[in-house]
């Protein structure tokens, strides 16, 4: 994956190309919970969400087994999946499990080493927002969306695989 424009500060952009201000705050594990739109670490989320009210964000690291979040998903509005380096592809599986196995329908955000050349794959796996390092985040989304009109396989974006187009039901 390219390191294009990786010197740019990350900007929050949706899969529709809207650039937004990030209202969420990542808490350290010993921070108090009082803030609005708090993002909890994965460990804290699975330990504490059961006893909490309201809706939270959760930060998932590549090695975290996201299925452990299943009992608490009704309290989760945002999941940030961390990509510490673009070569670490575990977050793609995390995203598909969240969307297609656990049925998570909140905001699924890619954070970390997120560059324009990954967007196509990320969107297919179910991400709908990105902390993107790019000079032109909206343009990057447009570009990623224009790359391929078809896909050979189904994933989390609802695109029908080519075989379904070849054999309409």
């Amino acid at each position, binding site marked *: *994956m390219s390191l294009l424009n990786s010197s740019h500060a990350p900007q929050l952009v949706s899969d529709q190309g809207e650039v937004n201000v990030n209202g969420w705050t990542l808490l350290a594990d010993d921070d108090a919970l009082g803030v609005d739109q708090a993002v909890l670490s994965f460990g804290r989320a699975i330990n504490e969400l059961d006893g909490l009210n309201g809706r939270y964000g959760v930060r998932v690291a590549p090695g975290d087994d996201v299925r452990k979040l299943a009992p608490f998903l009704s309290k989760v509005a945002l999941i940030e999946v961390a990509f510490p380096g673009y070569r670490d592809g575990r977050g793609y*599986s*995390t995203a598909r499990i969240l969307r297609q196995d656990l049925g998570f329908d909140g905001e699924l955000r890619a954070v970390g080493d997120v560059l324009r050349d990954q967007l196509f*794959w990320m969107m297919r796996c179910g991400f709908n927002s990105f902390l993107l390092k790019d000079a032109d985040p909206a343009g990057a989304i447009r570009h990623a969306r224009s790359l391929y*009109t078809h896909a*050979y396989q189904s994933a989390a974006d609802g695109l029908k695989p080519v*075989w379904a187009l070849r054999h309409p039901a």
Partner: protein
Amino acid sequence: MYQYDQFDHAMVAARNAEFKDQVERRLKGELSEDQFKPLRLMNGLYLQLHAYMLRIAVPYGVLSSRQMRTFAHIARTYDRDFGHFTTRQNIQFNWIKLADTPQILEDLAAVEMHAIQTSGNCIRNTTTDQFAGAAKDEIDDPRPFAELIRQWSTFHPEFTFLPRKFKIAITGATRDRAAIRVHDIGLQLTDKGFDVYVGGGMGRTPHLGHLIKSGLPGDKLLSYLEAALRVYNRYGRRDNIYKARIKILVSALGPQEYARQVEEEWATLDQAQIDAPHAEIARIKSFFPQPAYAEKPFDVASLERAKAADAGFARWVRNNTLAHRRDDHVSVTISLKPTGLPPGDASSAQMDAMADAADRFGYGELRVSHEQNVILPHVAKADLYELYRLLDQNGLSSANVGKITDMIACPGLDYCSLANARSIPLAQDISQRFADAELTDKIGDLQIKISGCINACGHHHVGHIGILGVDKQGEEFYQILLGGRADEQAALGVITGKGLSAEAVPGALERLIKLYLELRTDETERFIDTVGRLGREAFAGALHEPA
């Protein structure tokens, strides 16, 4: 063979347009080499010691004459007039200019070819039996399933950043000619579905694959693979590239535990969305019919007369043809291992000649084998002598298939930046040492496989004789392995004796062979069988000059 429809064309065209733009940005200096590297690697473009190398996918080794002519055109127009057929059933061009690559990819797209996923940590080209659809011992044709896997794995969004590259091999015959046990996943097609082997591989820690599932139905193959890849993607090691292949995960978990996790993951998948329906499998299968066989009257007596009159032809028929499912046809292997030349290389003129041969005598179809040879899968016996003469006029009639000089060798220090030692010149020396046809035939079936370093691109672990280049205080040395095999009785060779200099290797092999000829029960006992019967220790002494 498979033909693209509008969707397949659109997919390749889109990728080529994207890459063309990236090359232009690189040439204008908008991208640095660091930024460009991951992009070019997704398109099979490597930077080697001296120049760019382009690796083109030959899907499961199946090639039309028209595609072969395009390779000839690329060799002539953009390279130094030759190309290199590889152990991955692909072709590489070693002297490519960056500015030419978009045009090359366009030329390839015109004949339904590309270089997508020939590098990078993704699912690579699926390899298979070079005699698929032709061999007498075939149970079912693996090619439609290889094509199914090709489509499913192309731009798979979840598996583009795996811990490491991923290679799948598939065979549908009783004899394993695809080396499925040394691939990340090996698939054996049986009359009850697929046997799935996982965790094979070579490199610095070779493993043989473990059977984790039997009787997997063909229409469930893709979802099962998706589950297998997901477990690997999530739990394969990423902290150390030498421990990142699936073989390490499978041996750490144990094959049973890995299999259990795959089953568990498989059960969570929406299989109906992943597995192509029967209609699609049937559509793909329809592209792989038997050829419209020519009913050529074939007269054994005239073949025997030609053999009696031309000893070279007789030998070529004996060594380079394989029994076909039809009695009046054979499969022909064109050896790319002539004496003293780099294994797997072919000139543009030779590529054109092979394409002509396929059109005139082989129903327009060719294959590449992992032994780095080219195959005409269907040839009428009545045409053999004419075919032989055409090949002979083009330096393509080496009659050494399966013999000691039919070696596999990796690019080694001549091209590769990771190499410890040269592979190609050593292969050339050995082929010169054993150039005598009578001796070669007397020795019989014997596979030598040479790698220039521990990465094992030359399959040295599974050579009957493996040769591994090592670096000893700045000098090139070679270790000899004995007892490996890549077939249905797959085994890993073991280093035997001390390292040898390049000059010493051919002599050591001569002594080894001499001893084998003394020890074998008779000429039906192959080298590998004698090593199996007596143990490799019996041969260790012969590798070293008597003091």
